[in-house]
């Protein structure tokens, strides 16, 4: 596993960085995409940890399906966290 040390460190930075960005950014779409990136990083982690089954599951469910559901939700709700420059989001809903 020694030769893997550089890729692992890159992966750590990528995953943690994506997590921080996902929390900090105001644009929810970017946040969701970085959540997908975290899942991608995790699935590579699982691969390195000799867990191909888990890696495959995380790739299929975490990277693909979760991200898609998040994106659909954003399309239905709002794209920005503070909702003031919320012009591009599909407006739906009413005050009832």
């Amino acid at each position: 596993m020694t030769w893997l040390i550089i890729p692992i460190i890159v992966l750590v930075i990528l995953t943690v960085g994506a997590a921080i960005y996902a929390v900090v950014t105001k644009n929810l779409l970017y946040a969701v995409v970085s959540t997908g990136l975290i899942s991608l990083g995790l699935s590579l982690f699982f691969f390195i940890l000799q867990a191909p089954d888990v890696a495959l599951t995380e790739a299929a469910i975490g990277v693909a399906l979760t991200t898609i559901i998040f994106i659909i939700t954003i399309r239905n709700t709002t794209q920005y966290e503070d909702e003031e420059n919320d012009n591009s989001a599909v407006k739906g809903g009413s005050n009832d």
Partner: protein
Amino acid sequence: MIKKILIFILLAVVGYSLVDVFSYIPFGEHRDTVGDFYLQQSPETLKVANTVTSIVVNFRGFDTLGEVTVLFLAALGLSSIMYRRKRKGEKDVRAKKPSSRILQVGAQIIFPLVVVLGAYVFIHGHLTPGGGFQGGAIIATASLLMLITYRKFKVNHNTISWIESIAGVAFVSIGMVGLLKGMSFLENFLPTGELNSLLSGGVIGIIYVAVGFKVAAELTGVIDTVLLNNRPDSNNENN
């Protein structure tokens, strides 16, 4: 502001305790766990090459039954939460504008390939990495592709609920057969075959195929529900 400080104190406490606890848990060392027993029994008794599969389907098969149920309930709960009464003449609308020709042709080519890939993954679940959940998720991704590309592509809810029911009933019935034969629930009652051949592992392969169908149907149902309810709202909804 006080709230922020409290949050950071809480995070510091949780973080410190986690770091402290895990500093006592060595990484990459061998521990005496039930895993050793599974690693020994899986190739010898069950003739299943993939030990994770034999744990998921046989040793801890009850967990998997519960897990399939969780997904089933999520699909059900989702459509219950998102449910709304249709107005007269209203149709399920998803489309705003049609997608490009290239995307359509591409989706037509890719769709069967991805479905075959998914089926391959769950049929070979006991031999190679992957299995019912992974294969099912892959197939769901394929139908997602069709849903997005073809605005008129409709998931047939009848078919889905049939697949889901039959696969679920197959899972429970296979478990019941063991019970009826005087053995325990979910026990393997078929010959186990030879290690690393397609027909090895007795009921494990069959159950994982059922799980694959069920997961594919459930995940497709989840995505379709979320997509379908994607319509602007009306005022007379809350009644």
